[in-house]
């Protein structure tokens, strides 16, 4: 599978300085940085939809904003259509802003409350000088199942329901005919019955518009409905990547396993065991290079003091399945020893 990625990140890192405190300055300490995104490699191909799953604090929001171009990467690159973001010219940025669109989590706040729907949908068209605005807006409203369009054009966001607003959010993302849509928890603030409708809409849009999607969420059950591939993120790193079914059937990373196991099933006869996991993810501050899950991992080994490589752990006859875990690859003697050494030396 060597097709060109439409959008990808290469070794993407985004660290934030937590700000020098007086204490830092006096003691001449290094400021600790918040390592929100650490060496993330994502790729999405034309027409593909990938999910990024993680709990709060895993860095997915930062990842999204960096993809949007709101943050400058600390290290690494974002590559769109073969060109690195750091090399973008002004017109490259214009094209990027036209072709990469976003759907936000909070439908009630994603649109300016003082702006009518019509103006809200027109805005991206105005900014990019796209013609035939009236027609496009009407067409797109029909696509997101808001019919007749005229009923919605002159309304203010405050007059509409969550489901309607989210459809309008989707319409706004579609109106410039983008290549990639970044969706930030698009259904988490909707009721279940509305969720289903919006998820189905997203699925359909993907097919009909041939647009790629990067869907970010903490809710694996909704993500699995929409996405072909899922990346599991923990404390800034991708720990597993696999096709949806493969991940759900046989997760390999201990974190993925714990996560999938902890999801409640809509079935009173479900006999799954409650999680054995204790505690919660650490703060992503001042982390060393070792595996970030090791303090909670039931399979922890000395070698885990070292950063695990992202390796192919596919089962035979199964789809590609990548994991960042020492359990899944052979280690040289020297590496093993180094791991032990780090533990003895009081590694963190």
């Amino acid at each position, binding site marked *: 599978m060597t097709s060109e990625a439409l959008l990808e990140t290469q070794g993407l890192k985004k660290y934030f300085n937590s700000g020098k405190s007086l204490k830092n300055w006096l003691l001449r300490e290094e400021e600790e940085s918040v390592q929100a995104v650490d060496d993330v490699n994502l790729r999405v191909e034309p027409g593909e939809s990938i999910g990024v799953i993680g709990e709060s604090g895993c860095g997915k929001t930062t990842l999204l904003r960096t993809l949007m171009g709101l943050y400058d990467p600390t290290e690494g690159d974002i590559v769109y259509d073969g060109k690195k973001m750091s090399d973008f010219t002004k017109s490259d940025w214009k094209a990027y802003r036209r072709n990469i669109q976003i759907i936000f989590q909070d439908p009630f706040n994603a649109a300016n409350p003082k702006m009518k729907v019509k103006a809200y949908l027109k805005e991206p068209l105005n900014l990019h000088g796209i013609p035939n605005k009236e027609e496009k807006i009407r067409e797109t409203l029909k696509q997101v199942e808001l019919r007749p369009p005229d009923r919605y054009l002159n309304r203010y966001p405050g007059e509409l329901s969550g489901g309607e607003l989210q459809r309008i959010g989707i319409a706004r993302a579609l109106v410039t005919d983008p290549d990639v849509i970044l969706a930030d928890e698009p259904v988490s603030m909707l009721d279940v019955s509305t969720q289903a409708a919006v998820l189905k809409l997203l699925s359909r849009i993907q097919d009909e518009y041939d647009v790629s999607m990067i869907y970010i969420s903490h809710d694996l059950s909704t993500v699995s409905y929409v996405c072909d591939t899922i990346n599991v993120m923990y404390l800034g790193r991708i720990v597993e990547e696999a096709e949806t079914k493969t991940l759900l059937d046989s997760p390999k990373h201990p974190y993925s396993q714990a996560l999938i196991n902890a999801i*409640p099933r809509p*079935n009173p006869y479900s006999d799954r065991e409650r999680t054995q996991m204790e505690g919660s993810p650490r703060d992503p501050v001042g982390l060393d290079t070792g595996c970030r899950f090791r303090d909670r991992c039931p399979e922890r080994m000395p070698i885990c003091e070292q950063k695990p490589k992202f390796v192919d752990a596919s089962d035979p006859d199964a789809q590609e399945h990548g994991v960042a875990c020492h359990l899944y690859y052979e280690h040289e003697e020297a590496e093993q020893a180094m791991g032990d050494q780090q533990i003895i030396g009081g590694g963190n």
Partner: protein
Amino acid sequence: MNEPLLEFDDLTIEYETRNGAITAVSDASFAIHRGEYFGLAGESGCGKSTAAKSLLNILDDNGQISSGAIRYKGEELQNKSEKYMTEHIYWNEVSYIPQSSMDSLDPLKKISRQAVEIAQTHTDMTKQESLEKFKEMFEIVGIQENRIDDYPHEFSGGMQQRAIIALALFLEPSLIVADEPTTALDVIMQDQIFKYLDRIKETTDVSMILITHDISVIFESCDSLAIMHSGQIAETASCRDLFDTPRHPYSILLQQAFPDVDHPDRELQTIDGYPPQLGEDVDFCTFADRCPWAVSECRDAAPPLERIEDSETGRDHYAACIRTEEVRRSYEGDATPAEVDNDI
């Protein structure tokens, strides 16, 4: 002793607003037994939170119970004064875990102090006794005992929630009312908390009303449930009965709308329309406009809760629908509502 611990009997709650009265809960009836975990499910605005608040007499100022009764251990509570509630009910009979639990702890006081204050307000326990009990609770919810002297901000999100559960339990109430206790938490944290709630269920006699929109959580953690739609109880039964033999259209459609991580390919059920805005008199089925089985009679009167006979678990099963027969045939025979109507 089959008398229920808590009974809601034809309860109606209204809010006064500038635009007239709004009905939040309409003729709601359900019962909870001792040692039972009971889920109150429904989407936003269905009235589940309001119903719970009315039990504790903590409705907003413009809300009031306009008819019906709430019976706790046989005694009617809806007209009791706040003084009575404080002396007899709060914390030592019924405790409450509110929706935004993060705000229910005083950030300036150590948790132990808050526990002692609660104990001394509602019981005759000495400081020593209350601290002892509280430590026991911490153990049950899996937090180290020495942490009772910490301040709330020193706990992580999940631990704060468990600390609040410990507070809610240590005076040994008979009933806990938990309003969306894990909604803001990550899935693993949620599971941790329910692990302890399971344990509490096994070791004590306490009952719980769990209010949430997440039916999966209810199915896994509760014995029975009631599903509400726009102020009305649609169906109430044991979890297994409702799962095996749902009788109300909303129960069926709602379950099918939840994505299931074990079956990611399954088509999700969409439910048309929105819950209606309710005015003063609710004399129709609030689900009628969204219901594929609805007929004109559904809008003529509010459907009464009718007993469903086939209960495997022995727990009463009621559904508020005048077409449960047709619904059953459709659901079991896998025919569409239209086909059933035309007797295909």
